[in-house]
């Protein structure tokens, strides 16, 4: 009885705005009482639902290549919703012969008018019928059109996909709107107190100077007015070909998906640029060059003394990113690099979240916990088809840039020395858990299926990577660290840079040319 008292004690209060259920002002038209039943009570008369019982079956990705070269990949997971989309080998890395920014435009223009649909609204309405939403995102090497909808709407979804990918009719208005949206997006990045997207853009430009992955991912402002309809069509004609695409899906039957793909991507009318040849400019071609890691520097002097958008001031910071070449995700060392990335970890000196955010990674233990003037130190590993970039982003007050560089360089040099067993085991377990936790989400499974099939033709299940991570040894970590340290330095920096050390100097220290790897001379440590 104690329990009852407790509940009543704190709950039985006068509630303003609670309607009495007997008098019924709303439903004089006989729709029943549903809109008057409090949410704490079940609706009378509604039959109880029958639930599915669980125990996920063993998953497997099925892959079929169609006659025209399009690959169809599906994985049938549990749930009444499906995520379907097309992944294309297309993105800023292929834009060398074109004005940079095309992928950024394609992303903004996606799901616009097509030969079948008059405008984006019509597509959205069609999609809404099946409880669907859509999205388009471009990364440096992949363009993804994706939708989530109820599985019974699969046919409609595949039809929309084939329309938006093969038969977009870019109207003058849509192009204008895209220009605005791209402009706002770039402005937003400039205003954003978080400089990470800009820094990542800069470090890629430094690491892959003038080629592939180093090409601007976001449209440079001066290109906004250069990008015209025929350029977009020409680009799509060259890059959005069936053999560069994967139609991927999660949560449906494979045979059904293959049939739908045949109908909408093979039988139906040709892409619009093949039907109307005046849309394209035949001179531009496909770029298949491999990424060339060059190293180098991209610095941007900028006043960051007042980045706060509100009345509360934020501390003035200068940012550096120090990068080295890691490896492609196809490389045998890929997993070891991922573990090394995890071991370095890091984050902000002030960040929300409890234990589990990587508080015992090296960048916390050796950097953030020891040097309180360092505001942020985070490690990243970007892996692509043919190369990779391992980098550390760090920030502090501009006066301390020189010390900051020293601390970070020392941490990079330290990666080749002793690796503690417990530390390694922790990094491996965290990577394993992160892998599986990310894959709780259907859109992430979709993206993983799509990307793996796009680059290798099949998908390995997470268990495979789980086991590989488990096998990484301290020697592996030291080996990849040595490998990475032989590459040329990539450096980017943003803010007041008067105290930034010389590029050559940092490079020499990393290569061990400033004395015998003067790693222990820094700051008297």
């Amino acid at each position, binding site marked *: 009885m104690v329990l009852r008292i407790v509940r009543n004690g704190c709950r039985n209060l006068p*509630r303003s705005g609670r309607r009495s259920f007997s008098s019924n*002002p709303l439903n004089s038209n006989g*729709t029943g009482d549903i809109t008057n039943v409090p949410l704490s009570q079940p609706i009378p008369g509604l039959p109880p639902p029958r639930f599915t019982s669980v125990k996920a079956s063993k998953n497997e990705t099925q892959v079929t290549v169609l006659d025209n070269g399009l690959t169809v990949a599906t994985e049938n997971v549990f749930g009444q919703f499906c995520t379907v989309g097309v992944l294309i080998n297309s993105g800023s890395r292929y834009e060398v012969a074109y004005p940079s920014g095309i992928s950024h435009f394609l992303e903004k223009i996606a799901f616009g008018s097509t030969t079948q649909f008059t405008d984006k609204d019509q597509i959205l*309405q069609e999609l*809404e019928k099946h409880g669907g939403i859509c999205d388009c*995102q471009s990364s440096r090497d992949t363009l993804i059109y994706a939708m989530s909808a109820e599985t019974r709407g699969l046919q409609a979804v595949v039809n929309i996909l084939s329309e938006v990918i093969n038969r977009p009719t870019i109207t003058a208005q849509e192009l204008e709107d895209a220009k605005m*949206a791209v402009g706002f997006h770039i402005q937003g990045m400039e205003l954003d107190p978080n400089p990470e997207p800009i820094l990542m853009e800069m470090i890629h430009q430094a690491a892959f100077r003038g080629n592939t992955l180093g090409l601007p991912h976001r449209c440079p402002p001066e290109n906004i007015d250069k990008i015209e309809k025929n350029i977009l069509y020409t680009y799509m004609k060259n890059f959005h070909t069936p053999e560069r695409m994967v139609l991927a899906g999660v949560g449906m039957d494979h045979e059904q998906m293959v049939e739908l793909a045949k109908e909408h991507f093979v039988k139906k009318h040709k892409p619009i640029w093949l039907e109307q040849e005046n849309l394209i400019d035949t001179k531009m071609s496909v770029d298949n060059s491999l990424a060339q890691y060059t190293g180098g520097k991209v610095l941007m002097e900028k006043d960051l003394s007042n980045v706060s958008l*509100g009345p509360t001031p934020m501390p003035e910071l200068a940012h550096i990113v120090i990068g080295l070449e890691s490896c492609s995700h196809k490389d045998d060392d890929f997993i070891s690099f991922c573990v090394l990335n995890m071991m370095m970890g890091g984050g902000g000196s002030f960040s929300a979240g409890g*234990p589990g*955010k990587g508080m015992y990674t090296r960048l916390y233990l050796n950097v953030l916990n020891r040097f309180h003037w360092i505001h942020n130190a985070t490690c990243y590993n970007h892996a692509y088809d043919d190369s990779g970039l391992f980098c550390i982003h760090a920030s502090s007050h501009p006066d301390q840039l020189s010390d900051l560089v020293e601390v970070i360089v020392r941490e990079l040099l330290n990666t080749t020395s002793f690796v503690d067993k417990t530390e390694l085991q922790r990094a491996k377990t965290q990577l394993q858990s992160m892998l599986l936790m990310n894959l709780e989400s259907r859109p992430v499974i979709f993206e993983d299926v799509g990307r793996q099939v796009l680059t290798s033709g099949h998908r390995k299940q997470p268990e495979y990577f789980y086991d590989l991570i488990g096998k990484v040894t301290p020697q592996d970590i030291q080996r990849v660290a040595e490998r990475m340290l032989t590459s040329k330095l990539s450096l980017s920096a943003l803010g007041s840079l008067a105290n930034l050390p010389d590029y050559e100097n940092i490079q020499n220290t990393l290569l061990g040319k400033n004395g015998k790897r003067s790693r222990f001379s820094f700051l008297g440590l």
Partner: protein
Amino acid sequence: MAARVFKIVASRPTKLLLQPFKTGTRLARCQSAKAATYESTIENLPETRVTTLDNGVRVATEDSGIPTCTVGLWIDAGSRFETAKNNGTAHFLEHMAFKGTKKRSQTDLELEVENMGAHLNAYTSREQTVYYAKSFSKDVNKAMDILSDILQNSTLGEQEIESSLLSYKTSEQEIIILRNSTLGEQEIERERGVILREMQEVDTNLQEVVFDHLHAVAYQGTPLGRTILGPTENIMTINRNDLLEYIGNHYKGPRIVLAGAGGVDHDELVKHAQQYFGNLGAGYEGKIPTLETCRFTGSEVRVRDDTMPLAHIAIAVEGCGWTNPDNIALMVANTLIGSWDRSFGAGANMASQLASQSASMNLCHSFQSFNTCYTDTGLWGMYFVCERDQVEFMMTAVQREWMRLCRRKISPVELERAKRLLKTNMLLQLDGSTPACEDIGRQMLCYGRRIPFSEIEARIDAVDTRVLKSVCTKYLYDKCPAIAAVGPVEALPIYSRLRSEMYSLQV
């Protein structure tokens, strides 16, 4: 190449893919599973199973059989239960939770969690306090052990524990609960600094700032008007006794839900719950804490700062409490008005008229319709960010849209789209074990049950144009709004004019 899975991990660039439009960050996030249509509804999701322990702790799980899981404690306690004097205690307590227990030092606790690849997190809202862990399913027992330890055995000042505990002794069980707590005075001192730093962080987030101002005016003179962090004076003075008192008053079995999602076996979790939380007290020896009614006041606050680049404004009327059936219609209205950001472009969220107006007339940078619910009241309204010379036009557009809900009929097509979108958003939000677990915990506290999606769907379906108009009129029409405006807001019309836009002579 699980390349990309790793890449998402390493540089988190693509996580946004396919997240539904969020209808206001504080929107009453409602709902669970999925059904086809009426009648023979088959929820294509596992059932939510609920078991109540003898001391009132409710265990609710949804087992999807995956190798990872989320388990956590949802407690019916938050800053609303505080007084002006101890405002900030609930949040302070949340901070102290990770500072070590009788069994584990802070370092032991952190290392144990990090080494098992798990995550421990906690948050405090005005009405709820939440502690949860995300881990491999095989580690669920360890996760439960840690959760129960931090909740029941936090040190809060090791040495003095026995004495202050006795001074606060209410029952035999209390002692058991707090036995291992060490809430150390020293740690408490250190944590003051951390919380003040957090306060600075919050202050740089203008949306948070505006919502705190909005609560402060809308619920002036009541507990809901206070912030969650509490004023600086309190953060400087809250002591161990305040914390113990708060635990003693609020961390009671019947006010706690243990929720689990992902790979969690219900029977196993019930067993663990019995083992770890079976001793938790259920009753009160002293005064039973009551929930004070929080009166809504139509009023405004302007924090004019012309040096800021953009104006940040929230306007809200009094909405309704969690269980009020009108909530469904208010959520539909919310979705109908929608949310938008100018970098989405003109084509985004075309279902929303306000979005297309904003795009074509360049009215604002972004807007979000929101519906924040509490036990017996709520805030229903709009938050937007715009240029200084657009403030008045944007406000007019928002209020016209509101009047359209009340007076002129919304077309059935428009309503239908909003209803579908609402269902979709609710479903797609439940992606992953943590959102599912949060949904279970929150619903168990707010509704005392988990509502099957088929039921939510039926309820949304029942909102026709008449119901929508009627509910909107009830909450919006000729009501005094609460307004909070920060930044270059000179162009915001005076209150009496904004008030006069809350009715319309066009019927």
